[in-house]
């Protein structure tokens, strides 16, 4: 009998929480934000726009959408390049480190950690458990490393480097669901990251000069030096991608 009551309570609680979720998303649906790639330096969250420049993280209050007010500037480090927002966290890529900031208090980002790496350009993406950083070297970035780094970020204050995988010259990247990571390299490479400590290379989407990738639902948008290509992806069979179009510049 007690078991039944517990089960009943659990179900009721689940239903209530589902209900709250759906009403939340209903409220949010009035706001439509666009989506940037992993090389972006702008990130929208709630009533705030976060930006990074060479050395600073800036916070703009955009409660009045057409009249932003700069409310904070935080010196992060040197040669900052990319900003990626995930839930209440900002992941900042610089030429020699990945920084994680907590924005639970929206106007006062709090530094949680800094993971240093060799000098190179480095976009970062993350989910609830892992962060993925690509490092690439060229004339502007300097350095001599080209690799994909995987961090365990279950403890955001102490990211643990799980592995580094050598690549050709990786640039932008995007997670596709929880299981896959797509990386712009000498082609767009698809990795199975079901086990992030042992990611597996599966397949490539042939692309020359790929710069960055955005995945929205099951659609991939790949920007390269000479084109914008769109692909339909399939979570149940990742190697079964279909080209929708390619607009050549």
């Amino acid at each position: 009998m007690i078991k039944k009551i517990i089960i009943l309570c659990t179900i009721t609680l689940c239903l209530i929480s589902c209900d709250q979720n759906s009403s939340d998303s209903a409220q949010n649906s009035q706001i439509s934000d666009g989506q940037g790639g992993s090389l972006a330096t702008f990130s929208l969250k709630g009533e705030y726009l976060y930006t990074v420049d060479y050395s600073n993280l800036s916070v703009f209050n955009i409660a009045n959408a057409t009249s932003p007010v700069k409310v904070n500037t935080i010196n992060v480090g040197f040669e900052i390049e990319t900003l990626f927002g995930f839930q209440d966290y900002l992941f900042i890529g610089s030429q020699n480190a990945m920084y994680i900031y907590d924005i639970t208090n929206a106007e006062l980002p709090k530094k949680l950690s800094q993971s240093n790496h060799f000098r190179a350009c480095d976009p970062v993406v993350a989910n609830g458990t892992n962060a993925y950083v690509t490092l690439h070297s060229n004339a502007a970035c300097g350095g001599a490393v080209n690799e994909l780094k995987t961090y365990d970020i279950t403890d955001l204050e102490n990211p643990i480097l799980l592995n580094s995988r050598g690549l050709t010259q990786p640039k932008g990247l995007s997670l596709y669901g929880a299981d896959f990571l797509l990386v712009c390299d000498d082609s767009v490479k698809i990795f199975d990251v079901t086990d992030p400590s042992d990611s597996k290379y599966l397949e490539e989407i042939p692309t020359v000069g790929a710069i960055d990738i955005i995945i929205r639902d099951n659609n991939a948008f790949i920007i390269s030096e000479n084109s914008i290509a769109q692909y339909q992806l399939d979570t149940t069979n990742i190697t079964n991608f279909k080209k929708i179009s390619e607009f050549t510049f």
Partner: protein
Amino acid sequence: MRKLILILCCLSFFNCFFNDENTSEDPFFSSYDPVVLAITEFENSIVLQDMQPVMEASKIYIIDTFIFINDKRTGFHIFDNSDPTNPIKKKFLKAPGATDIAIRNNILYINQATDLVVLTFDFNALTAVVSKRVKNVFPELLSPHGEWFYEEGKVVVNWIEK
């Protein structure tokens, strides 16, 4: 041990000399020229134009059925993607100095060199109006080698390789 350090020091000095021949990191012999605009020209430089050829594709941003592609430090190409099998290049939002954009509903936020610029965009008519310019919230643009340029009343919007 001391000898070793001395030798290493010597080697690194040699390194400097040899590098000087072809390096562009020497601030006195920069391999980049700044592109500058007078402040009034800069502040009136954002214009929505007819489509333009893509010169240097850089970052990508998507919202609903539109794709924005930054042409490095010159502006944004706007594509109508309502038919993904046939995206159409519609407009060029000229914005000298800009690299990044964020869009919420019909409001565009752009980093134009030192300024954050807010535009109100009509996605049906494809028109844009500058709603606000928040001045001097970003640092002056440095060259890819970290060089700096300052002249009273001028704004650096790009650095071009010589």
